[in-house]
């Protein structure tokens, strides 16, 4: 095995304990070997980040296709609540049995037997009673609206026209030439060059605990929108809106455009958000929202 292979195997933790001990003993007195091990560790960490970025990309794809769990298990009930429920069920069951129990025929029992109650369902139906129409939630007479395709070109074109692009320059202005660019700056530069794939790889790598996470989600929303991944854009903007560190106004308009691009399936969300913005004269996009309301009605 070449020395580089041994170094790599050591860094990956693939040496057996004896080999590992020998190797560690060797590099204690060899500064060049120590340096080579440090470099291999860095290579390995970079490779790990690249692999994670790829997996994050897959997750975004799969996430848009995967429904949320339909039902989560409710928090555990306390023993007392269960006991109370059981007692109540026993009591009600006992009462029903007592009321409906078959006549035993014993003379004394008939004294205690209450008048027999006929349950409503077993009562004979009065043929003259008025017939009441059952209320249904979905009237059968209502015409069935044809479902619009999710990708309605008209709405997509409108959404793309109205979408408010980020000012990538604002991220670049703060760049100190002597310092490496931070993730947001690098991503903004990729967006400016329309290299959305690299921008998304960088932005997705920031975890929820990172102080730049919210800004990354806003940029990611734009990246996805430009790639016509509207559901993913919607998710990114929604994640940004969950934070109290960002003004809702700054994100809402582009979230609205993400809904508009998926109008057939997001009409409810779109109407709700559009009405909210259009009802708030202080919202920076108030006038645009009023205009949009008129256009959509046409």
């Amino acid at each position: 095995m070449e020395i580089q292979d041994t170094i790599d195997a050591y860094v990956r933790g693939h040496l057996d304990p004896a080999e590992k001990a020998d190797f560690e003993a060797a590099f204690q007195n060899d500064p060049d070997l120590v340096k080579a091990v440090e470099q291999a560790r860095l290579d390995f960490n970079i490779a790990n980040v690249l692999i994670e970025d790829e997996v994050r990309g897959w997750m975004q794809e799969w996430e848009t296709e995967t429904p949320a769990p339909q039902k989560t298990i409710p928090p555990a009930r306390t023993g007392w609540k269960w006991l109370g429920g059981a007692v109540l069920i026993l009591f009600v069951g006992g009462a029903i049995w007592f009321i409906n129990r078959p006549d035993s025929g014993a003379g004394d029992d008939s004294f205690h037997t209450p008048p027999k109650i006929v349950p409503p369902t077993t009562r004979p139906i009065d043929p003259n009673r008025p017939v009441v129409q059952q209320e249904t939630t979905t009237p059968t007479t209502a015409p069935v609206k044809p479902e619009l395709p999710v990708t309605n070109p008209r709405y997509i074109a409108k959404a793309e026209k109205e979408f408010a692009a980020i000012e990538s320059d604002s991220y670049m202005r703060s760049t100190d030439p002597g310092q490496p660019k931070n993730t947001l700056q690098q991503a903004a530069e990729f967006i400016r060059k329309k290299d959305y794939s690299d921008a998304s790889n960088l932005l997705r790598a920031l975890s929820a605990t990172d102080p730049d996470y919210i800004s990354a989600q806003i940029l990611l929303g734009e990246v996805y929108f430009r790639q016509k991944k509207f559901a993913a854009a919607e998710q990114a903007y929604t994640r940004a809106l969950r934070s109290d560190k960002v003004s809702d106004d700054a994100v809402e308009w582009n979230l609205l455009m993400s809904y508009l691009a998926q109008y057939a399936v997001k009409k409810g969300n779109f109407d709700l958000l559009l009405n909210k913005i259009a009802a708030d004269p202080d919202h920076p996009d108030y006038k645009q929202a009023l205009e949009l309301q008129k256009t959509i009605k046409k």
Partner: protein
Amino acid sequence: MNNSINPDQALREQLSGSADERKLALQQIFRSNDLRTMTFSYILKHGGKEEDCRDVFQEVFLLFERAVREKKFEGKSSVSTFFIGIVKWHWINTLRKRGAYTALDDRTDFMDTSDSVEVSVIDEEKRKLLHSVIGQMNERCRQLLRLWGLSMSPEEIAKEAGLAGPDMAKKETYRCRTKLKEFFDARPHLMEALKN
């Protein structure tokens, strides 16, 4: 004698198989409704909110992928037991960071898996620095380094990257790593920051 491979074993083999097999296996795990339900239930039961659930699931999925790659998952427990073990470990750490973790006895919760669930995590500052380095690499080197990181043989790297053969794969990977070394040699402060 039953010679059939159980689904868990098949999944584990796929995870360490070719690039396509690995991706398929990961997709199957990511889309498992049972795993999601178990994760979401655990988080909600232990002080988490709805919005935490999806983030935790995704973070744990990444940790799970890395643990499998680093051979920390040896199949002593089932995939789901191992996954939920990481969920518990990760959630306890998250609560600790938020200063909201108190119940120390909960720590025993994730000991129901025989495989170690404690996965090494690259901290945020280092990750940012590593990304700034990755930003300087060309796409070819990123691909080769990623494949090398997956412990692929030179033959597999050549196949995945469309190179003429294993020798070429080895040579190209070596060239990329040499460029990285030169990059760090010119920036000893960066190397130092990443080392510590």
